[in-house]
Each structure stands twice: as C-alpha cells, then as structure tokens.
C-alpha cells in the first residue's frame, strides 16, 4: 500500500542487497582471483584466432585457370610491441622496399588496433624469408606468416585485381567479417563477385595457459572451419583470348570483344595495352604505380567498357532501321545522288568516297557505307527521336555486364546543344554528322558487340556477361542474363542482315576484307574521325554464322586507319581461329 516511509525502507533494503552482491563479486574477482586474472591478462591466453578462407579461383569456360591462389610469405607488424621504432624501420627499410615513411604511416593509422597484426609486406621472396627468420628474434614486433596470394595467369582487364583493404573499405565492411589485413577485390570481376569469392573466416579460440592447461572459459564451439569462397567459371575462352592477344598490333591501342550470340557470354575480352594484375596482388610500389598511371598509352584503361568512342559508320544500321521503322523511307526508295558529298544549307558534307556512289537505296547505302545517303536521311529525323531510338537499341547506355564502373557513353539531345552552345545553336549540322556516327556520339566497343549480337538473334538483345556459373561445395549457381527485344520489326531486321551480308561478301562491299570462304560473316566497318590523332579509329563489328549465328564481335583500333582495311582482316582471322577451335 502507498506508504512513503515504508517504500523508502524497502527501496534501501533492495539497493543494499544488490550493491552487496556487486561488491562481493568484485572482491572475488579482484582480490581472490586477482593474481590468476593478472597472469591471464599478461600472457593474453584468451585470444581469438581467425582462420582465413581460401579465395575462390577463376577459370575459363573449359576450366583452364585465369586467377589462382599461390602460397607466399608475408611480414606482419604488431605496433604495440615495437620497442625501438627507428631500429625496426631501419631494418625493414634496409632489407625490404618499404620506406620509413610508409611504416610510420601504417602505425599511426592503426590507433585502436595496437595489438593486432598489421600486414607490412606481401610476397616476400624465399631467400629473404630465410634471412628474416634468422633475425626475427631481435624484433619481437615482427612476425612472418605463410599464406596465399593471388596469381593471375595472363594480363587482362576483366578479372581485375585484389589488394589490401583500405581504411574506408574497412570502416564500411568490418561488420561483415573483414579484418584490417583482409585482401579484397579492387576492380573487375574480383570486385564484382567479391561476396562470392571471399568465403567466410573460421576461428579458433585459444584459452590455454603457459603450462598447457585449458582455462575452460567456454564450453562450446572453440573451433569453426572457414568456408572457402566459390570458384567461378567464366564464359571466356583462354585460347581465343590468347590468339587475339597475339594478332593485335603492339603499337596500337585496341579493344576486341567477342561474345556468344546464343547466351550473351563473353568469349574474349582484350584491351591493349594491358597491365599485369599480379603487380597489384603482390603490393605495388610507388614507382611501379607512377609508371602505370603516367604511361601515355594508359594501360590501366579498360577500353571495352571504360573507353567511349565515336562509332563511325558502324552506327549507320541504327539510322537505317530508324528510317524504316518510322516509315521515313521505303526499302526501295533512292535518296539524293552522291557526288562525293551533299550540300545541306550553307555547308557541304563530304562522303568518304570522293568519286561518289550515285543514287542508292538503303541496302546498298549500308553495303557501300555511303555517307550522303545517311546525311539525307538524317534531315527527316528529329534529333531527340534519334537519341531515343539509339538508347532503345542499347547503344550509349550501360549494357549491365558483370563488371565495375561500366560507362554509358553519350548521345546529345536538343537540350544539351542549347545548354552548351546557346539558345539559337543550329542543330542541323551536328545531326547530319551524328547520322554517320560522328560528332558528339560516344559508345563503348561492348555496346556495339551486343548490338550486332542482337541483330544476329533477329532483334533479341541479351545481357553480356563474363560469369558462366559458380562452383561451390554444395551447389552451383548459373548466371541468367536478361533479354529484351530491340524496337525493330522482323522484316527490317532481315533487310539489315541482308545489307550486312552484302557489305562483307559482295564485291566493293566495305567489309570485304573480312570475307571467309566457308563461314558467313556479317559486318559493318567504321572509320571514325576524332580529335585525338590524324588517323581515324578503325572499327569492324559483326557476327559469324555457321548453321546458326554463333559469335558476335567488335574489333576496334584507336587511330589505326580505316575499318575496312585494318579492323576487318583481324575480325576474319578471329572467326577463322574460332572455327578451327570448333572443329577440334
């Protein structure tokens, strides 16, 4: 019952009881068992030891290796146990490439992790390991451990590389089980499929004192095995990849992508010049890094999805189908005569063929790649409609490939011209240029490859992808690409296919250098003018048909000349090699 003195008495009674309990417990811990706990605390008997999982390995479609793990030695430092910082830094400085500044930085970055091992140097050569083990007793703060690092079988841009986790990444990921020494995918597939590849750490809890007596703080679960990361099988074919690498000219920047039209899987993905991802896996020195990023040919740039270029004449099929779809032109209609150019307003637009093509209907305009035809056609098309249709054909938009940082490319619209060049900017000139894939339009080699694969599939566009499936302990996941239909009717697709066939297989077709006797190649050349150099970018995009369409490809060479003479022959060699592989 409500009674203040009584409530007060009861409260004091309970409070006293609880505090007595706490006091007894503290007394028990600190006075009775104090020495025992002090001993435990000095030796750190109770320690959590994580067991690292093996990172998943990456293979090509025939289970040939692309990225593997290999054993290596690493040097760790425990900053809290450093006795003489100068001596330690000098030792490391003398025998390893790490500099004093770097070590100081590592130590000051690890404020709250003073008694955790922090990775200093990876991939130490064996002779140095021997040397180190002789001297390690002088430096209690250093430990040498054997673990595994990544080994990439060949240079490429798609697989990416791994590296030590950065401070920012660690802050974001520490709750999901990453430690400050974790190795994490930084780019490419290694980053995209990080969650599959990484696996799950196991642990051991050590609770044994110096005489080997088990302290028995815990009853259960003292050991848990790590779960290794999933292996990944790619759609890449190492043999084809290797062949393409050998036939590309060393002195040119180029990008070649080959995909399977039936699945959207990428068979070859070559961007040149390339870099050695093993440099990153082993820990890159400042000098190597500077060399890479200051190289004028920019080997770090993945030209297939990060490089955007004007597509040149390979873009003409889009304009042609747009004309047909919107009934701006009939298949048999001939447009203005090509006399080596066309006068539009006060400007004369030149055709690449100075002698002129005469009057052409749509199929031959594609076959001969006549610029004048498309200049004339462009006058009937609204600019924003051209942009819309281009995007619907999935050019100048991301393809959604399973890689990091793919770029959209660019297609200008009315708004953009007004913002860039003022209200009264003329758009006739730029639009005429855009119709032949010149000017502001930029797309990636991969987008073109996917577009031509879709033409081969009668208009069914498939998401390009590198992963075929995963191999895990209990299951295997397959990559399922999404599909969509291009906004082109079957009739018009057939017409376009016919034009692409003629461009390669008939006399005077622009792509005739790609022609093979036993395999039917469909394709379109492109020679895109650009600000970067004198020579045009050479393009050849198309697909090859055996009983059915099987592969689509884009061959792109920066500032290498004409698509018909430079890129087309390379494409035919690739198809020929693929045919040889097929027969084997």
């Amino acid at each position, binding site marked *: 019952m409500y009674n*203040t003195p009584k409530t007060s008495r009861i409260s004091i009674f309970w409070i006293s009881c609880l505090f007595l309990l706490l006091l007894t417990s503290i007394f028990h811990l600190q006075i009775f068992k104090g020495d025992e706990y002090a001993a435990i605390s000095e030796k750190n008997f109770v320690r959590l030891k994580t067991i690292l999982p093996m990172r998943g390995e990456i293979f090509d479609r025939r289970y040939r290796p692309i990225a593997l793990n290999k054993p290596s030695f690493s040097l760790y430092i425990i900053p809290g146990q450093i*006795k003489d910082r100068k001596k330690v830094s000098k030792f490391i400085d003398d025998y390893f490439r790490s500099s004093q500044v770097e070590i100081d930085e590592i*130590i000051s970055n690890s404020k709250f992790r003073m008694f955790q091992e922090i990775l200093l140097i990876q991939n130490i050569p064996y002779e140095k390991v021997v040397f180190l083990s002789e001297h390690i007793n002088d430096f209690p703060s250093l430990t040498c451990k054997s673990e595994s690092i990544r080994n990439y079988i060949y240079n490429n841009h798609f697989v990416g590389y791994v590296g030590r986790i950065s401070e920012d990444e660690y802050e974001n990921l520490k709750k999901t089980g990453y430690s400050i020494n974790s190795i994490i995918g930084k780019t490419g597939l290694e980053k995209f499929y990080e969650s599959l590849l990484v696996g799950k750490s196991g642990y051991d809890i050590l609770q044994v004192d110096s005489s080997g007596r088990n302290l028995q703080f815990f009853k259960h679960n003292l050991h848990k095995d790590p779960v290794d990361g999933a292996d990944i099988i790619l759609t890449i074919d190492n043999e084809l990849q290797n062949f393409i690498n050998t036939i590309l000219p060393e002195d040119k920047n180029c990008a070649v992508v080959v995909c399977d039209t039936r699945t959207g899987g990428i068979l070859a993905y070559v961007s040149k010049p390339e870099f050695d991802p093993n440099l990153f896996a082993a820990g890159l020195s400042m000098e190597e890094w500077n060399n890479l990023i200051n190289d004028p040919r920019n080997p770090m740039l993945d030209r297939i999805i990060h490089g955007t270029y004007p597509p040149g004449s390979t873009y003409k099929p889009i304009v042609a189908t747009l004309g047909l779809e919107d009934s701006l032109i009939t298949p048999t209609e001939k447009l203005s005569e090509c006399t080596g150019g066309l006068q539009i307003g006060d400007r004369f637009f030149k055709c690449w063929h100075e002698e002129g093509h005469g009057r052409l209907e749509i199929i031959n305009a594609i076959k001969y790649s006549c610029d004048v035809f498309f200049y004339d056609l462009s006058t009937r098309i609204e600019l924003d409609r051209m942009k819309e249709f281009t995007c619907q054909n999935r050019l100048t938009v991301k393809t959604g490939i399973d890689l990091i940082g793919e770029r959209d490319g660019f297609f200008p619209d009315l708004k953009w011209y007004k913002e860039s060049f003022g209200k009264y900017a003329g758009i006739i000139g730029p639009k005429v240029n855009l119709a032949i894939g010149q000017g502001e339009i930029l797309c990636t080699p991969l987008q073109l490859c996917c577009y031509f694969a879709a033409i081969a599939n009668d208009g069914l566009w498939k998401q390009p992808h590198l992963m075929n499936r995963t191999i895990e302990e209990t299951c295997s996941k397959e990559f399922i690409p999404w599909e969509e239909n291009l906004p082109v009717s079957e009739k018009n697709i057939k017409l376009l296919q016919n034009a692409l066939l003629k461009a390669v297989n008939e006399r005077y077709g622009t792509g005739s250098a790609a022609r093979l006797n036993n395999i039917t190649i469909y394709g379109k050349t492109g020679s895109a003018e650009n600000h970067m150099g004198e020579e045009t970018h050479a393009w050849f995009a198309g697909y090859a048909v055996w009983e059915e369409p099987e592969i689509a490809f884009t061959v792109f060479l920066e500032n290498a000349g004409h698509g018909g003479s430079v890129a087309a022959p390379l494409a035919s060699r690739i198809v020929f090699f693929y045919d040889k592989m097929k027969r084997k």
Partner: protein
Amino acid sequence: MFHYLKRLDWFLFILMLLLLLGGVLAIYSASTTKIGSEFHRVDYYYKQIIWIAIALLLFLGVMRIQYSIIDLLVVPSYILSLLLLVVVLFMPEIKGSHRWISLGLFNIQPSELAKLTTIMFIARVISKPGITDWRILVRTFIIVFIPASLILLEPDLGSAMTFVVIFLVMLASSDLPNYFLIIMLSPIITVITSFISPVVFILYMIILTAILYRTHLSWIIIGINTACNTFIFFITPYIWYGLKTYQRNRILSFIDPSRDPLGAGYQIIQSKIAIGSGKLLGKGFLLGSQKNLNFLPEHHTDFIFSVIGEELGFIGCLLTLILFYLFLYRIAKSITFLKRKELHFISVGILAILTFQIFVNIGMNLGLVPTTGIPLPFISYGGSSLIINVFSVSLILKFLNERSIFD
C-alpha cells in the same frame, strides 16, 4: 534569481557531479591507447563534457520553470516518445539494431526518453484519487506495453527489460494490493519449474495457494490462478520445442552467454579478465593493458566499468560503488518527504530505473548478468542517456526543493 539554490539538496547534487566527473575521466582513459611511450586518443571525452554542459543547463532550466508546465507536458511528451520510437524503426541499422535517430552531428536514442515519459505517465495514472485496482493494472500495463514492444522491435532487449522493471516497481509501490503482483509474477516461476520437474511445480503451487489464501482472496480467483498456471506448465514444453533451433539458441545464449564464445560470451570473459587483473590497486590511470589490447569494442560505453576496474583496481571499484550507493540511498531517503502521490511515484520510478541500470551494467561487466547493452548511468559515454538521467535527477531535486508548495 538563484534563490532556489539555497534550498537545493546539495549533497545529492554534488554526488551527481562527482559521478559525472568520474565518468569523464573514465571515458578519457577508455578512449586513450598507449603505444610504447605515446598516447593515441579519440575525442569522446570532449563530446561528453559538452553533453554534461548541456545537461547542467537543462538542470537550471528545470529548477526555474513552474512545475505546472512540466505537468502539462507529461502526456504530450509520452506521445512524442512513442512517435520517436516508431520513427527509429525506419532508421538505418547500426550494429544490428535500429536504436538511434541520426541528426547529423549526433544521434538520439528515443528509448531513453521513453523510459522517463512512461514513468511520469504511469505516476499520473496511478495517483488519481478513487481509481480501482483493476483500472490501475490495465492502464499501467497498456502504458508500458506500447513503448516496450516498440523497443523489442528495434530490437533492444535490455531497454525493454527496463520497462518491465518500471512496471513492476511502480505497481508494487502503488495502492494496488500485493496479491496482484504475486498473481502476475507466478507464471514466470511456473515456466521455470516446467523445465525442472513436476514435483517442484506442485510444491510451488501449494506454497502459492497458501500465500494467496492468507491475503483473504476469494477461492474462485485462487482457483483460476492455479488453473492458469497449470495450463502454462503443460504448454511451455510445446512452445519451447516448437521454436526453431536458432531461436532456441538465441534465448539460451541470452541466459548463458558462454554458449556463444564469439559474441557476448567473449566480451564478458575479456571484461572479467580486465577487472580481475586490476587487483587491489589497479594498473594505474591510462595504463590498462587489456583496455589497450582493444578486446572490448564498447569500452567507452557499456564496458566502461571494466576500464575503471582494471586501471584503478578494487579501490576504484569500491569508490565508484560507494558514490552510487550514497546517491541512490539519498534519493530513497528523500522519497519520505514527498507527500504528493504523483511526485512520489515519479521519484520511485526514477530510483528504480537508475538502480536497475547501475546493477545490470556493473553486473554485466562482472559476468553476473547477461550482456544487454545498458549503459552505466552518468559514467558511460552517450548523450541521450546522460541528458535523461540528469533531467530525472533534476526533477527529484525540484520536487524536494519545492515540496512545501506541493503539499
């Protein structure tokens, strides 16, 4: 202007200041790591000082304004805290639960506010003249149930438990006859006996009936109570084994943390090692080696007592306990002076949660009770809990100051 300071309970006030000051020192040490001969520091202590300054301004404010204003705000602030508890569920997850509302510069924890507003609202309800026993019971239950279940959704079991304590203590101190509490608590013991043996259960039922008989309850109510308990006794095993394995494990880990060596169990072991290794005199201020090893991620908040125990030893722990004890004792004694029921109940509620939080937090550091994420009042780092605790004590100080007006 400061006339109210003359009659202030300086003893209580200074005890609170000492605890706050000790807290700043403890946080300063907890956020300092010694490497070789250098110290590295995170600025938690600095933020805590700012929070204390804000809290003391709030104290002055409480002392100055009329109580009628606070009185007016009881129901609106209860509703506000419920709203905040709903809002917090839509906040991004921090460490696996939705406990904080992020306001950019700092985070607020609505459950802290809800504790105080719930106490004040219950006090209002149970001090109404002429209210029947059943109404007290039902209304109090509803007032506690809503915030407690919202907090369970976050999920924050520790704070939800605090509401159970509020509920029980405030009912026990109210006009409600004691057998209500006995009847309400009896199923909990029944659940425990159902895991032991039917013999224990039958013995328990006999004792319960005897106790209830002495309170002159009608046989019908005693009969219903016995029937309900028997039903619970038989249904418990079915519910328990109907749970999924991981759900059972979670409950078992809560009762016995050493089942989960990587989670709470690991923290408790490390905390015990830290405190135990402090021995009589401790390792010295800033010099705790276990703290430096950073085994405990929360040592500036929930596990701050382990830092005190390690660095200042038994003497430091004893001093902390004495400060807390005197502080609580003073409040408990003061209750006698509060003749107005509502103020009395508010003070009892505040006393209860402060005691509960102190006991559970220190007990958790010592491995006596499961880890629940309840901070140590006045000592642990954290703005919300600090502000609410100082505000609560300010209320009690105000009641004591102005008791002649209220009577």
